[in-house]
């Protein structure tokens, strides 16, 4: 029941923001548009298997809007758009929002939905900034209107699998469990390349669908392959389910478990310290990061919403803030002006100094490797893990295959 009051309170605030956003479309048309509020569309999976991430992300966007207050003399407002975590509704609803005048979008948690939304928004001369992971988003499918804050799958593997191979030279057999869509494929391809380079044996992989909840069958496959390391390449509740079931099968005692792309604090809260102890987690964000913006955000969210920002919240906060800062810098809220302001932007971000690479619209930032700690070693209720390493790993825009039109 933790944080439920805080969640409810913050939800109500976010709801008020969203509601105000919903009444805007009419105002945005025609001559009165400039006087109306500045609407940021937040296309997120508010329902479906990834709704927990979507709901926190929605709070993060609302928090950024509330903090900004007004930009260019216009009150900032967030319009929540429920993508259901699926590409088709995501594309349709973003089109509708654009039809009503929204041009700036911050959201898209799943790679599959982010890819289609980026294309739709670009077609309409808007800007879409996302936290989704597939390399393609700022790689082979990059485009003028799409930006990405998170480290893509290549960097996530480089910052988790590489240091762990170095740390555990005796662990020669790795098994992977992969969701079969663009994000999982990206992580798997990157992991295979590292295995090959380092002479590590990839003893097997189990693919599963994006709707899967039951992992016992895949875990039985993994056990049969007798690996030293189990590498989970899924995300959100799927990675929580896979990890929970792996621990119940006693795998923590038999092998090292690594979750390449964890969803951060919310995942630790859902699983509990006992389950996470000794497990390695790759992370885009951790509330303990020592940067001025992060310290300020954590203090402010703890004070006002009585919760600690998690990855979904923080990522969404950061990308919404980036859009608002860019609009302020550009002195205009139209797509081309905001794109220009974002390209090459260096700023003090949640993970320290961050930079938006102009060639492919990828933010250059740190990725973190965490290790779950014992309940008895936790200093406070959020202190689930130690950051054991961090760093930046990115393909060059050319290697990622980005040809910006």
């Amino acid at each position, binding site marked *: *029941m933790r944080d439920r009051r805080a969640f409810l309170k913050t939800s109500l605030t976010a709801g008020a923001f969203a509601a105000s956003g919903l009444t805007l479309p009419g105002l945005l048309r025609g001559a009165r548009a400039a006087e109306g509020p500045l609407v940021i569309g937040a296309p997120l999976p508010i329902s*479906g298997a990834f709704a927990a991430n979507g709901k926190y992300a929605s709070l993060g966007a609302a928090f950024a809007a509330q903090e900004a207050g007004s930009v260019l003399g216009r009150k900032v407002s967030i319009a929540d758009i429920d993508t259901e975590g699926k590409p088709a509704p995501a594309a349709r609803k973003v089109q509708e929002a654009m039809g009503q005048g929204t041009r700036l979008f911050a959201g898209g948690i799943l790679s599959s939905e982010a890819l289609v939304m980026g294309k739709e928004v670009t077609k309409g001369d808007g800007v879409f900034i996302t936290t989704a992971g597939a390399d393609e988003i700022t790689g082979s499918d990059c485009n003028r209107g799409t930006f990405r804050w998170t480290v893509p799958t290549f960097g996530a593997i480089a910052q988790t699998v590489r240091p762990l191979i170095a740390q555990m030279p005796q662990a020669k057999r790795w098994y992977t469990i992969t969701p079969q869509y663009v994000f999982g494929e990206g992580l798997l391809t990157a992991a295979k390349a590292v295995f090959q380079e380092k002479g590590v044996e990839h003893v097997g992989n*189990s693919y599963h*669908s994006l709707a899967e*909840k039951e992992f016992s*069958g895949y875990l039985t496959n993994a*056990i049969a392959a007798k690996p030293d390391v189990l590498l989970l390449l899924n995300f959100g509740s799927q990675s929580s389910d896979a990890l929970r079931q792996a621990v119940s099968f006693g795998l923590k005692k038999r092998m090292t478990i690594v979750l390449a792309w964890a969803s951060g604090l919310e995942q630790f809260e*859902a699983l*509990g310290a006992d389950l996470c102890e000794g497990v390695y987690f790759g992370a885009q964000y951790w509330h303990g990061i020592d940067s001025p913006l992060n310290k300020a955000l954590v203090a402010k969210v703890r004070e006002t919403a009585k919760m600690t920002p998690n990855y979904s919240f923080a990522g969404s906060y950061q990308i919404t803030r980036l859009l608002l800062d860019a609009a302020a810098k550009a002195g205009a809220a139209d797509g081309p002006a905001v794109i220009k302001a974002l390209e090459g932007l260096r700023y003090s971000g949640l993970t320290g100094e961050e930079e938006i690479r102009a060639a492919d619209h990828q933010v250059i930032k740190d990725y973190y490797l965490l290790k779950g700690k014992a309940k008895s070693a936790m200093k406070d209720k959020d202190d689930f893990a130690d950051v054991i390493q961090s760093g930046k790993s990115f393909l060059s825009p050319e290697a990622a295959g980005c040809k910006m039109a």
Partner: protein
Amino acid sequence: MTYLFQILNGLGLGMLYFLLAVGLSIIFGLLQFVNFAHGAFYLLGAYLTYEGVERGLSFWVAMPLAALVVAGVAGLTERLLLRRVYKLPHTFHILVTVGLALVVQETVIIVWGPIGGNVAPPEALGGVMILGDFVYPEYRLFVIGFTAILAAGLWWLLDRTRLGAIVRAGSESPANMALLGYDTHAINTAVFALGAGLAGLAGALAAPIRGVEPFMGVEALGIAFVVVVIGGMGSYAGALAAGLLVGIAQSLMATLWPEGARLVIYLGMAGIIMAMPRGLFGRA
């Protein structure tokens, strides 16, 4: 050897699926009522167990208590709301129960938050059974055994007791039962509470395996419908056979063709609908 373990694993899954589906099947079979809120009762059972364990109750107390509370809530809902739509077409059943499911789901989010949580298996069953190179969680073994006993008890209750006969007669001919002096309203309430209570129990038993999260009811509802459709609407034996079939197929597919593990379930259902529209054990 891997296949053998996938079958064992599938058996465990199948028993859980049976428990999930049998309540839905009973409610449809006896009340002719399509209950889309079934997954919500499963969700509620899981969360009440979570809350009980978080508050320091033993799992052995929290689990049956959760099922009883769910049965109580369901009985009350039947009396106050669902009874009013029995005589209306199925579309109204769907409308009301989908609405109910959404209300339960959003209430869970407001009370417990959107993240979900973990329920540790009871200490005595926290270990694993080791057979050569393979391992199987003791708690899952317990679920297989417990559900098997429960299945036998349920069959006995509905098929071999006077109470079961009254319930079945009530569904066949409510007017005659009323003429004989039986309170058919009370029978309906009891049947609905039993069906929903079984979903609550399935949720409670699943919590240590799956954890709890606010959207678990939607997935459970899907599986329950697949099992009921394959087994035959209202058929008790059908729910058991189909539950096991789906569980074992899903588990075996994880080795044979992992990408298709879920696909095969729905393809199987489509095949059964085409070849045997009433399902494996459906009544004419």
